[in-house]
């Protein structure tokens, strides 16, 4: 009795296990990714943070634009200049408040509804109604629609208006079509080349929008896989599981460089990695000579070219070279020069009296706390490199690693000597907010992000001019002058600017990488002939 029960059990278990294994292996044998010559389906590997496609939630609108679903009135080109998209042209009246946008004729939403100024109006109004973040871009008195003409009257002069409307938050959706749809899974009805077939965070399947307005749409289907691990993403591209991948990691780039099966599009992003320097009166770094010594003691070229293998561009100015603000014309008085740095420290009265390698002054050690977080791989590398370079000059740099969650508060309270930052400088196409937030004088907490104590009346004066200046050329000039002030003052240590990339199989053409990181999938991407 017992024997037969045991036998039966083992038989069942063995059979079950074998079939699971067999199923796996047989299923596996059919695999091998995208079959060669498939010109109907485009497969893309990315990292996706959005759980739904509702553009009104968090930053999910970015994904709607990245995936080629949604479009906005304007867009950023490869130099971050604002270009027409769904709006053909625009102008601002003499009152500097009334903006008139001419909405492109003949554009249809993917459901066939025509794109009118009225539709644009209700789309923008919906954003302001539902998203508190919208009013950080601009606030309006009225929006009126007449045929294809849209008029927005802002409350205060907004020189950056066309760029604000390029933010994915203001992508244009057909608000009438939202009823009865689950926008979160089906996506909003927009005007992009592709439309949603199915969506979960890990995988989006999109099909061609038959009503697309800007030329033909080459692929019947687009599949986007979210592959969080960078090694796996690179392998998926190598194996042909995906035809293109966004952001291949530094360590994997060598596989694709010089490989004639792949095309690399690499560009400096809009990010800036910098160390904010606390120069409040009672801090060591309040002495401009010590700041200058600190900055010129850091061999930033070797951090970026050697340690980070050229995946970052060497830092010098506040605004990255991806933006057209005369990066090469800036003069950094504190470029790498350890002899000068040592001399400056001597002049400032910091000397190593006790021979322990660390300088001191009035019995106080030259010890500085460098606050960093490590969820971005490059930040601890920078911090350690700075620590090691400055040790040679007699600085004792203590690295305090904190959770990213704490960073903001530490920055506001100014509880640091050096504070790492990896920040987007110009998500609206213009670095005004960035330049204001970090360096405009903070009087009694009216500019809380500037917790460093940096203050220069000349800088503030130019900042005020900038916020009211509409002329593009003059804005550029002002920003460049402000950058030069920051460099001359040794306001911060600009470490580097990350590069971003899209690597694609040579089976594709038309893949482009934009500094704004909003436009991944377009109808310009097509099978190579």
């Amino acid at each position, binding site marked *: 009795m017992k*024997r037969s029960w*045991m036998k039966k059990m*083992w038989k069942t*278990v063995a059979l079950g*296990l074998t079939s*699971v*294994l067999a*199923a*796996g*292996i047989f*299923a*596996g044998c*059919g*695999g*091998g*990714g995208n079959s060669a010559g498939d010109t109907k389906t485009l497969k893309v590997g990315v990292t996706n*943070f959005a*759980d*739904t496609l*509702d553009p009104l939630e*968090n*930053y*999910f609108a*970015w994904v709607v634009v990245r995936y080629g679903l949604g479009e906005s009135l304007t867009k950023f080109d490869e130099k971050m200049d604002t270009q027409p998209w769904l709006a053909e042209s625009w102008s601002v009246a003499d009152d500097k408040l009334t903006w008139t946008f001419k909405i492109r004729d003949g554009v249809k939403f993917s459901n066939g509804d025509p794109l009118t100024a009225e539709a644009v109006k209700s789309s923008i109004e919906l954003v302001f109604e539902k998203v*508190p*973040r919208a009013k*950080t871009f601009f606030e309006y008195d009225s929006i009126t629609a007449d045929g294809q003409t849209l008029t927005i009257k802002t409350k205060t002069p907004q020189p950056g208006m066309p760029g604000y409307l390029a933010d994915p938050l203001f992508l244009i959706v057909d608000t009438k079509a939202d009823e009865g749809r689950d926008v*979160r899974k089906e996506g909003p009805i927009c005007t992009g080349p592709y439309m949603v077939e199915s969506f*979960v*965070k*890990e995988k989006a399947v999109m099909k061609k929008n038959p009503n697309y307005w800007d030329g033909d749409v080459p692929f019947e289907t687009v599949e986007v*896989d*979210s*592959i*969080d*691990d960078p*090694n*796996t993403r690179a*392998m*998926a591209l*190598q*194996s042909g*599981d*995906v035809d293109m991948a966004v952001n291949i990691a530094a360590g994997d780039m060598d596989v694709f460089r010089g490989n004639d099966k792949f095309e690399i599009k690499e560009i400096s992003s809009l*990010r800036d990695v910098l160390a904010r320097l606390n120069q409040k009166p009672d801090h060591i770094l309040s002495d401009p000579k010590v700041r200058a010594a600190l900055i010129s003691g850091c061999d930033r070229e070797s951090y970026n070219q050697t340690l980070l293998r050229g995946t970052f561009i060497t830092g010098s100015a506040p605004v990255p070279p991806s933006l057209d603000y005369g990066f090469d014309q800036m003069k950094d008085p504190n470029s790498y020069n350890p002899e000068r740095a040592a001399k400056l420290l001597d002049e400032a009265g910091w000397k190593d009296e006790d021979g322990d390698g660390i300088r001191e002054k009035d019995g106080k050690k030259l010890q500085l706390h460098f606050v960093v977080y490590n*969820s971005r791989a490059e930040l601890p590398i920078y911090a350690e490199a700075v620590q090691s370079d400055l040790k040679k000059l007699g600085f004792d740099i203590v690295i305090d690693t904190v*959770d*990213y*969650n*704490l960073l*903001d*508060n530490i920055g506001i309270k100014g509880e640091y000597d050096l504070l790492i930052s*990896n*920040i*987007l400088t110009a*998500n609206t196409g213009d670095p005004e*907010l*960035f330049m204001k*937030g970090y360096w405009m004088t903070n009087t009694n907490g009216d500019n*809380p992000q500037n917790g460093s104590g940096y203050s220069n009346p000349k800088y503030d004066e130019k900042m005020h001019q900038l916020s009211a200046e509409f002329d593009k050329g003059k804005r550029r000039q002002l920003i460049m002058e402000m950058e030069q002030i920051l460099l001359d003052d040794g306001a911060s240590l600009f470490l580097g600017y990350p590069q971003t990339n899209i690597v694609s199989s040579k089976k594709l053409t038309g893949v482009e990488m934009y500094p704004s990181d909003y436009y991944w999938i377009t109808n310009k991407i097509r099978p190579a002939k």
Partner: protein
Amino acid sequence: MKRFWKKLAEMLVTLLGVTFLTFCLSVLAPGDPAAMVLEAGDHIVSEELLAETRHEMGLDQPFLVQYGRWLGGVAHGDLGLSYSAKKPVAEKLMEGSTGTFFLAAVTVCFMLIISLPLGIWSAVHRNRWPDYLVRVGSFIGVSMPNFWLGLILLYVFGLKLGLFPITSSSVTAKGVVLPALTLAIYQSAKYVRQVRTVILDELHQDYVVGARARGISERRILYLHILPNALLPLITLLGMSIGWLLGGVAVIEVVFSWPGIGNMAVHAITMRDYPLVEGFVLWIAIVYMVINALVDLSYAYLDPRLRRTLGKGGGN
């Protein structure tokens, strides 16, 4: 019946305690969910906007009010809305759990296929070359980091041989093989030793000596007498492994782009997504309770001695 109610009350108290503690820890941990949501865009966010968002999320309420609200929701079957995913926590958990269940099931199968025969083989050939081979193998298996093994398997079977897809992204039979194998190799390395020890223990029991004396073949002794007896301690271990697997295996999920609950949990903690963290903790607590109950039940079923004692105990 009385025992059932008592058990249920115990479970409820445990769940209450676990969720309350988690809530305390989440709130005590520095960080601001509103800032995490807003700063996902990585640019400078104004204080007014932060305050407004905090208010909207109910984060300006006192701690106990926040917990009370959450608890009230749970009592009505509503686990709240995830801050980062902007969808109901229950929905988010459901999405992850399909993948997690499937991966756990296949992993356990693979694990048994690998560890049982090897463990037995090694015990039977104690201190001879098969034993040494298995022991060295298991030593290597335990020492290898999970994600590294995963990447190696991906490289060999995915990229070089093209047998399996590199990315899974959805729950498929094809996609589960490599992640399950990675986990199974790691787990088996531990199990092989356990199986070996348990079998060795049993080999020296009186009943084995008796069976041998009666001239029963070694094979029959092994499969019909020793194995059933060895099952009991192994089931406890298995229960714990299943609990661990059902809690999600974040690293493996990331490496294989496998949609599961583990990566979701890690993300929820980094993002200070309190409702999602609470939902996950509730899930884990329930999984462990159910598994413990099942393990207890299986004891009673598999071991007649226990069944008898339990039967008596139940009557008291």
